[in-house]
């Protein structure tokens, strides 16, 4: 049973169908929200709000609308509003990120580099993933939402373009800028880790 059938069943009073919808999309939405807002409590509130809005607007839902797109549209709008409200706190967040790149960060990169030369597949540690999360969180809003839509929500560039109201080339351009920023961040880490490894090697 696809998402639309589950939604139709819930409209008829089937609570189990709605529970199934929650189970299907909860983790992916959580992943998106958690990386977008970079705050667990806020992400929890937003995740709950997404499903509450679905409950509230279930009567108006039409079977022609794709449930996953509907869910993500709600989530994206909530994230955008929240990001604008917390824009003034961005500088503080950046400071926290820089503070987190202290000795422990360098050691982790060092550990990654020492454990294996294949950073993409084998050696990426949990804390390195956290650093990537922070780098994604530092992206400008337009680049961040495009990057997360593509990498977390598995949306095509055409869908993203329709979602954000921009042309597809524009969306791809934003994606390229996002990758360049991430590359820059990761390059700084690699360079720092390489220098630390060189100093540690006799």
């Amino acid at each position: 049973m696809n998402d639309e059938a589950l939604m139709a069943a819930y409209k008829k009073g089937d609570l189990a169908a709605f529970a199934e919808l929650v189970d299907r999309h909860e983790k992916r939405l959580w992943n998106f929200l958690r990386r977008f807002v970079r705050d667990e409590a806020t992400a929890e509130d937003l995740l709950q709000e997404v499903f509450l809005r679905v409950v509230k607007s279930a009567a108006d839902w039409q079977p022609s609308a794709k449930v996953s797109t509907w869910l993500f549209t709600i989530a994206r709008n909530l994230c955008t509003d929240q990001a604008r409200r917390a824009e003034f706190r961005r500088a503080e967040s950046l400071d926290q990120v820089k503070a987190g790149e202290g000795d422990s960060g360098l050691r982790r990169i060092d550990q990654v580099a020492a454990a294996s030369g294949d950073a993409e597949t084998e050696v990426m540690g949990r804390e390195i993933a956290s650093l990537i999360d922070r780098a994604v969180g530092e992206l400008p809003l337009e680049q961040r939402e495009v990057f997360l839509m593509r990498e977390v929500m598995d949306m095509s560039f055409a869908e993203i373009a329709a979602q954000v109201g921009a042309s597809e080339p524009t969306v791809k351009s934003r994606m390229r800028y996002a990758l360049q920023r991430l590359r820059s961040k990761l390059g700084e880490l690699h360079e720092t880790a390489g220098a630390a490894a060189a100093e540690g090697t006799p």
Partner: protein
Amino acid sequence: MKCSEVSSLLVDFLYDEIPAVERREFLAHVEGCASCSAEVKAMSSTLGHARAALRRPLAQDPPARVRERVLEAAQAALAAKASESAKPRTARAPEPEGFFARLWKTPWLVPALGAAGVATVVLLVRVIKNPQVIPDQKPALTEALTQPPAEPLGLHQAQPRPETESKPLAKLAPKQTQPKEPAAEFDHNRDAEPKHAASAGKLHLATRARDNPLPSDRKLARSSDERSGVGGEAPVLAPLGQATVGKGGGAASPPYRKDEERLGAVAKVGPGTVAAGADSTNRWAEPPPPRAAAAPVGSAAAPAAAQPPPAKKAKVVANLGEIQQSAADEGISRSAEREKAQAPMRPPTVEHAAQAETPADKKAANKEPLSFEERVRKAEKLFAEKKWAEAEAAFRALLAQAPSNPAAKTWRERVAAAELAQEQARAAKASKAHTVDALDGL
């Protein structure tokens, strides 16, 4: 392919969305371009790191409490929906009615509308039967008859007199010291003023001086006798008297010039005629003394000038009886001659009339001169207020008491006019009642 094109196609290449032909060109350029090759490798490595990080499980799964709250809300929504769907079958609250809907259901609406309709019909019938209940709705004939006098007729003797009257008086007037008048325009009349002063008794002047209820401008017109009586004793009044006498010399002040013009119009055309009525139409509308000034003269022209003489008014005057008839028969030249002949012999004021009566009456008039004037004023007031019956009675009483008063003719006219007005009012009422009855019959 250029390096810029490689940069623009980089995302398509990474996500494998580049067309095959362009892909070959892309790879051909990258293999031959070191910078582009490094750029592509770096971007591919970054994307790999990001995907690896994003696909790793997060440190925390979505809290279970979120799922619980959401499912509770979903269940509550279903329950609410079920209860809403059940409500229409059982009891749905009626929608609030509008103001007019509630008004229409009000039990007293029909009686109230009925009462209002009855009241409207009664009012309309009343208006049709008697249009005078409407303000400014007066029959023309009645209005012509009931034009209120500007001043009580009994006081006409106080008005300035025309030249025909003042000249004979001037012959009898002794020379007096000329008063000091402030107005230079009266200087040429100084000689005439003391002459005219001789015609007025001091008793009358004293009475007028202490009982002067008229406005200041009216005082100017009335005080011809006063200032003559006061003479040098009251220099302030002297200019007024001079002006009064001076009108005979053709240099009178505007109020007296009006009197002169009126008298002249009467002398040329004659009273009771249509022409005279047209001429005096405007004067009829004038409030003050012109009409009163002619009255003391006592000639037949005086009542005609005092009457409303527009075309229809002249007709009414013609119906007033012998007074109007005799006035119409008299020529203006004849009346002017008679004026000259009678003026010296006529008592110009009410007080003079009272003095000409028996000694007992004279004493009574001396004792209570104001009561007579008040009665005259009251009669004129009743006439002005169109209280025809009362006015008629008052004038009849005045005529009974002082039949030889110079204003007696006017009083008789008032009596006749009041009678006629009452008669016409009764006739109009009867005709309207007949009309309403005819309409009701239709």
